[in-house]
């Protein structure tokens, strides 16, 4: 009789939030794969009802301490598009700068503190620092620069206070922004070094075949807004998102999961962005990617660490360009009067597409809210990948297989705190 094996990780380490993993094998056959999430629900979409449309950026920021700017940006995009407001160009550029700060902070955190230890055989970056202090210090310095950008533009690095519907409460002077130039120059060099460092890791050969979904702008690597495009040929306005994507509340997986309407797994995040728009990266990022041997597409989840590193180069280089070109706006914000109706907002969180929809009344009171974070969209793709990785590696012993599975999950940088608001809770801690 075929041997039954169950590989369980009760509490996934080095991911944001509380998740677990179960893989069941019968002989060489994978019977069941599950990325389980026991992070308790917090009901954001429920208590947003009755709040002012102006409160949405501050409230939704609290969904995630790692990517609050993503929530703030998708929220203001939804409200401004509904109310017919287009913010002046300097404000849009300042939003991009703030968002790049978040990418730098979040990517440096993931590359150095959460992901690199997998490739180098350590349990944490703290342990890694004993043998490779220069590398970890480089990562922390990079992360710090991202935080410095967020602190200057946003007021603080976690849950910035300066973002409002219509713009900012206070915009920095040209001189203030210039103080970021020197640290960003150093960060740019550190990011280039990060690409060289991660490109030298050993990668098992993997390719994911699912659809890739990311935002697109004609002349930029989209971050703060854009149209939703896919490798399958979709090209949608934010308002069309729900016509093409759906969320299912499935008991088996204990989670509400996104898929293409009518079935079909898709992936968003660094691999999708890179594959769909690598030609729109900054020149330095394209150069670093070419030197790292990435090619114009990357569908290898293990190499997502190299893609994140390339995006670090892009974020640093673009931030420097934005600071150089910055002109102080006439006013820090545009007054936004509420308009009854439904607003749609999207942006590229570090982990991928973040979708918000709000229905508000003429007084600006929120009547309905829907938020779809990247991790919920990626969950099916993560489970598919996990199943395939296990199928190809059944000869490994339990410990080695568990390690490989955990790394497979960390390849996607899942943010379980983000995902929680839609996730079913059926606590079963073994």
């Amino acid at each position, binding site marked *: 009789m075929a041997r039954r094996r169950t590989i369980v990780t009760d509490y996934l*380490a*080095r*991911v*944001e*939030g*509380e998740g677990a993993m179960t893989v069941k094998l019968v002989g060489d056959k994978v019977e069941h794969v599950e990325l389980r999430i026991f*992070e*308790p*629900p*917090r*009901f954001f979409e*429920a*208590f947003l*009802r009755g*709040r*002012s449309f102006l*409160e949405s950026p*501050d*409230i939704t920021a*609290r969904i*995630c*301490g*790692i990517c*609050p700017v993503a929530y703030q940006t998708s929220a203001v995009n939804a409200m401004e598009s509904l109310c017919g407001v287009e913010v002046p160009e300097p404000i849009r550029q300042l939003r991009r700068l703030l968002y790049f700060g978040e990418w730098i902070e979040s990517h440096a*955190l993931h590359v150095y*503190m959460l992901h690199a*230890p997998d490739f180098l055989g350590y*349990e*944490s*970056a*703290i*342990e890694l*620092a004993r043998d490779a*202090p220069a590398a970890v*210090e480089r990562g*922390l310095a990079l*992360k*710090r620069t991202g*935080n410095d950008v967020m602190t200057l533009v946003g*007021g*603080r690095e*976690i*849950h910035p*206070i*300066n973002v409002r519907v219509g713009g900012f*409460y*206070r915009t920095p002077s040209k001189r203030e922004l210039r103080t970021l130039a020197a640290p960003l120059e150093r960060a740019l060099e550190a990011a280039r070094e990060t690409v060289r460092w991660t490109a030298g890791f050993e990668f098992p050969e993997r390719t994911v075949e699912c659809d890739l979904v990311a935002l697109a702008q004609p002349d930029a690597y989209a971050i703060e807004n854009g149209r939703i495009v896919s490798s399958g040929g979709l090209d949608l306005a934010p308002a069309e998102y729900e016509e093409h994507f759906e*969320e*299912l*509340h499935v*008991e088996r997986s*204990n989670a*509400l999961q996104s898929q293409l309407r009518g079935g079909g797994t898709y992936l968003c995040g660094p691999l999708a962005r890179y594959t769909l728009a690598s030609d729109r990266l900054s020149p330095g990022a394209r150069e670093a990617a070419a030197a790292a041997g990435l090619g114009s597409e990357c569908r290898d989840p293990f190499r997502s660490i190299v893609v994140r590193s390339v995006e670090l180069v892009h974020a640093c280089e673009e931030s420097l360009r934005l600071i150089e070109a910055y002109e102080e706006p006439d006013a820090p914000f545009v007054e936004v009067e509420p308009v009854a109706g439904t607003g749609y907002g999207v942006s590229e969180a570090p982990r991928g597409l973040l979708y918000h929809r709000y229905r508000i009344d003429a007084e600006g009171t929120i009547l309905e809210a829907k938020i779809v974070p990247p991790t919920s969209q990626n969950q099916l793709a993560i489970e598919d990948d996990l199943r395939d990785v296990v199928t190809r590696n059944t000869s490994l012993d339990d410990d080695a297989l568990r390690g490989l599975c*955990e790394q497979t999950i960390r390849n996607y940088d899942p943010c379980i*705190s983000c995902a929680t608001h839609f996730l*079913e*809770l*059926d*606590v079963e*801690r073994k």
Partner: protein
Amino acid sequence: MKPTLAVWKFASCDGCQLTILDLEDDLLALTGAIEISDFREATSAVVEGPYDLSLVEGSITTPHDAERIQEIRRNSKALITIGACATSGGIQALRNFADVDEFTRVVYASPQYISTLATSTPISDHVSVDFELRGCPIDKRQLLELVSAFLIGRKPRIPTTSVCTECKRRGVVCVTVAHGTPCLGPVTQAGCGALCPAYNRGCFGCFGPMESPNTSSLIPLLRRLGRSDTDVERLFSTFNAGSEPFRKAAGHG
């Protein structure tokens, strides 16, 4: 032997434990002085308790978590809560004033799968807490001061005055007096460095109520500044909505 540290998460956004990693320049110095025994966001290495110091993020929202915190308390010599969720229940405590079954139906297609408590409560409602560090999120300088004080065995220097004192110290013009901007600074505990007023914005209460907050004087002032009852209720109903003074000020009884 270095003192051992554990970091625990309950219902929260992860931001307060991220503050530990955001210490950056001081992080490696800190890990030199302290043995990190259990900090899942940062490491897969786990050392069994008991722990000299536990930092707890998040609020209690499930029956299982209500049990888990008891075990953590038993295993911790000192237990410090970090942030508004752990200290007052967080923004998810808004469910305390609503029908949680209705909330569940709004968010989930199949509410029968959901298991949750009707309330989101602070850690101190469940176990004894040695210190509560405020903030949504906490301030990293305060965190470093607190952990340093713990290591040396002295009392931490964490002010319990209002945000107003920080405005005065920083030389920030009062946004209410100068611009008529509604501000919770007079009733909110210091700690952020008067961040919002420095950005031309009224304080919105991230650090929760100060000691003996005079909300009954502030509310008429907010009304004179043209704020409706609904505006006032919203202002007090955010990240520290579950704290008693803010709960009462919002009219949640």
